[in-house]
């Protein structure tokens, strides 16, 4: 996407809210699961009833430390809980318990792969907080209802420095961050269900100046595409306003995905004074060095390290390694295929080609599809083994693969059932060649007269005559010999 910024340059920082995959909520024992009937997962504590007090879920701290270590943050030995005060019906206590001046993680970074290299984006902080409930407005506008299932579900807020310049960088940052959280198994990264949410802070300034321009926050983006489109729209809008001699005011704008534009929220809602102060119901959070070390030891291999290993140990090209490691489930699947049959490049081709194509076609981008995939890694490994062993050709393999998708059977069983075995005996192939050459005398003459391009035509005819089962290598060799005039 090309951006028309004229004499201006853009500055982008992102705030991500990641909902954590803990079994229970952050300050009570209620289930944190998504999708229950309204207000099913609530108790007096997460409803903020009079006299109720929060008790911290230890697992949330562990997840926050995991995220902090994976993004090279400093883990604060003592952090503090704060109250963020504001009125809204979905906020049952009138304040949100969050962290403010002493967050649990600070000063980290992640390396974001871009087309022309890697960019290091710094993280200002990662802090823990509770989610709010959700208002549901009926279609006629006569009533509003509140669902508090989400109230008290733990969140990490991950705040970047304004280190990004282009919408595509913001998109790449988000994908990398989501991939890390998924690798850590602390967030499912589902943007549409709201478990991975993003607000963007954008500003523009005259090229080669230092001072930051007026910061405008964009909310309400629920896909990677929307984030990139919204930022692009907003940056161009800001330049347009400035070039027309207008001034920008610091505000919050909403992305309207239907009209593909941002618009200002009511100014009343952006004029907040949250009156943060330390929450007197929760003592300061002390995280011991040994706790941090325990978490560090339990960290899984992260995308960066895995990518490097795929190149150095499995001998994959950089590009393959990057595509395969972008999602932990895909990388796990790929490794399982290689374990079943050690041909990494073939496995890579299948996973990057056929598997990811289907994931895209079926729009399974957000779901952890691989474990539910009808073609198990063992079966795909077996399929590659059949090719490498010469039992079937690559072409037959595509047919077998389609069948595996449809019925979920092992490839050997499908080959046996359908007779799709590769023919590697010279006899039937020579017979087919003779038959094709006899039927196309004129073309044989043309070929021999120098029209080399016809070779492919003869290969195709022979494959057709053998029902696609002929070993292509053998067909090539034998056909060359025959056409050479023997």
């Amino acid at each position, binding site marked *: 996407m090309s951006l028309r910024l004229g004499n201006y340059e853009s500055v982008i920082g992102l705030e991500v809210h990641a909902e954590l995959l803990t079994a229970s909520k952050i300050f009570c024992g209620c289930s944190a699961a998504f999708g229950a009937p309204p207000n099913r997962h609530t108790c007096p504590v997460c409803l903020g009833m009079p006299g109720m007090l929060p008790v911290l879920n230890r697992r949330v701290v562990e997840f926050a430390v995991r995220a902090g270590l994976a993004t090279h943050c400093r883990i604060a030995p003592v952090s503090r809980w704060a109250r963020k005060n504001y009125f809204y019906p979905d906020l049952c206590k*009138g304040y949100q318990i969050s962290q403010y001046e002493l967050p649990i993680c600070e000063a980290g970074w992640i390396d974001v792969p871009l087309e022309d290299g890697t960019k290091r984006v710094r993280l200002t902080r990662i802090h823990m907080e509770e989610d709010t409930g959700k208002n549901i407005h009926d279609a006629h506008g006569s009533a509003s209802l509140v669902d508090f299932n989400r109230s008290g579900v733990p969140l990490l807020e991950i705040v970047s420095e304004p280190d990004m310049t282009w919408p595509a960088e913001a998109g790449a940052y988000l994908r990398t961050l989501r991939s890390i959280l998924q690798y850590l198994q602390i967030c499912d990264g589902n943007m549409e269900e709201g478990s991975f949410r993003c607000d963007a802070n954008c500003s523009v300034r005259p090229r080669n100046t230092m001072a930051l321009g007026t910061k405008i926050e964009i909310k309400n983006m629920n896909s990677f595409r929307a984030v990139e489109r919204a930022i692009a729209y907003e940056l161009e809008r800001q330049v347009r306003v400035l070039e027309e001699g207008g001034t920008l005011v610091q505000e919050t704008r909403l992305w309207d995905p239907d009209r593909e534009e941002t618009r200002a929220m009511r100014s009343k809602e952006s004029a907040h004074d949250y009156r*943060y102060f330390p929450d*007197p119901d929760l003592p300061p959070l002390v995280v011991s060095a040994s706790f941090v070390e325990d978490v560090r030891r339990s960290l899984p291999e992260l995308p960066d390290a895995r990518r490097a290993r795929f190149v150095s140990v499995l001998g994959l090209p950089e590009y393959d390694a990057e595509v395969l490691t972008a999602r932990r489930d895909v990388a796990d699947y790929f490794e399982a295929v290689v374990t079943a049959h050690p041909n990494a490049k073939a496995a890579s081709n299948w996973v990057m080609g056929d598997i990811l194509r289907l994931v895209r076609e079926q729009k399974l981008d957000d779901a952890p599809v691989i474990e539910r995939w009808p073609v198990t890694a063992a079966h795909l490994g077996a399929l590659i083994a059949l090719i490498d062993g010469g039992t079937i050709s690559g072409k037959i393999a595509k047919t077998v693969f389609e069948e595996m998708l449809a019925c979920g059977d092992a490839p050997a069983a499908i080959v046996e059932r359908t007779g799709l075995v590769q023919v590697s005996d010279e006899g039937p192939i020579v017979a087919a060649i003779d038959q094709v050459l006899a039927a196309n005398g004129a073309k044989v003459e043309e070929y021999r007269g120098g029209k080399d391009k016809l070779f492919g035509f003869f290969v195709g005819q022979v494959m057709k005559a053998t029902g696609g089962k002929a070993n292509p290598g053998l067909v090539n060799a034998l056909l060359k010999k025959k056409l050479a005039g023997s």
Partner: protein
Amino acid sequence: MLNDLTIATAAERLRRGELSAVDLTRAALDRIAATEPALNAFLTVTADAALTAAADADAALKRGAAAGPLTGIPIAVKDVIATRGVRTTAASKILEGFVPSYDATVTRRLRDAGAVIVGKVNCDEFAMGSSNENSAYGLTRNPWDLARVPGGSSGGSAASVAAGQALAALGTDTGGSIRLPAAYTGIVGLKPTYGRVSRFGVIAYASSLDQVGPLTRDVTDAALLLGVLAGHDPRDSTSVDRPVPDYAAAIAGGVAGARGLRIALPREYFAAGLQPDVERAVRAATDVLRDAGAALHEASLPHTEYGVACYYILAPAEASSNLARYDGIRYGLRAPSTGGLLDLYRDTREAGFGREVKRRIMLGTYVLSSGYYDAYYLKAQKVRTLIRRDFERVFADADVIVTPVAPTTAFRIGEKTADPLAMYLSDVLTIGVNLAGLPAIVVPCGLDHAGMPIGLQIVGPPFGEEAVLRAACAFEAATDWHALRPPDVAGREAPR
């Protein structure tokens, strides 16, 4: 007869079968019926539930086994403490008709110990006040003189115990709210160390200061009730996981408990402004303790004068946040509002909160707002640290600190309502204890020229409840002040 019973004596007679829990509860309910027109101490009387609990207690007593320490004892509970299935309003219109689906931990502990909860007692709205004049359901009167306040905010708790409506009551103390009414009504009030008693289910006023404690007729009962209430609660993150000592053992020595006790007398607490009768009574009380073998010395708490200012920044700050949940959306009052969301909030809170609550919400909102936070809230936190260090220094060579409770005895109804600052100064001698999170007890130590009770405050170091009880018990054993009772107000109407 009810008026003379302590928990200890009643429990003994129940155990011996000389008295049934049902009779005792009936007597309490009758007494409530007879004295309420004069006092207005109760917001809710749970007669049926109390009689059922009393019958259960009698059955348990008959079985003889495993009766709790409070089995069959009628107790009143301040209305800021949640009681499952029983209306709990914090004396505010905004919680009109609110019936919690849960018990506070202290309520649970009372029930588990066998107590008979006779009802919910009046208080200043959301525990904000020093006179019990701020209740949305009318003020409570002092049984010693119906023209005077019982003290706040646990004024209903204190009046109910003093007037024989219950043998004991639970109160909460944020800046002196147990101790001041105990002093004004001539009973014993104990504010435990912050973190000693669970706050779960206690409607929060200022979370970092609030603490639940007993109001009783003597020190023995205070020790007994504290033993029931105290202990770690995993549902309150500020509750401290520390063994509960045997408080009864701490007071077993009686007068002898004063022997060798090192008592500090902070000169700032005996400064000008003290009503002469109060000063005389407290000085006399310290003489009693010295005669019983205590070693007295003067000490200094130099930051005392900043206590009230510090408190009236921190407490309203926390209150402004704690009271934000009363917005008319989910429970309690919802004002009929025709406007938008903001109007619904505004109209509900305008109609639901009283003047003092609004005053503190506004104060708190102001001191926390951006640009003022550093100047007020943060500065007050620093002052709080200085005050805490003052106490630490004094406790380096003292077991307890002894002071007056309030500059004056109970004042007349309406006397200070027009002047909030004068009212706030009622707490000048109790607030430091809350800011430092310390335990403190109040015991009766005299009467003023008008016949109104005077209290003596004994303060201990953190988790020094044993020392505090020991000193209080020694004083009580050497004097008769705790045996004085107010005139009988049964059958009287509240004066106009």
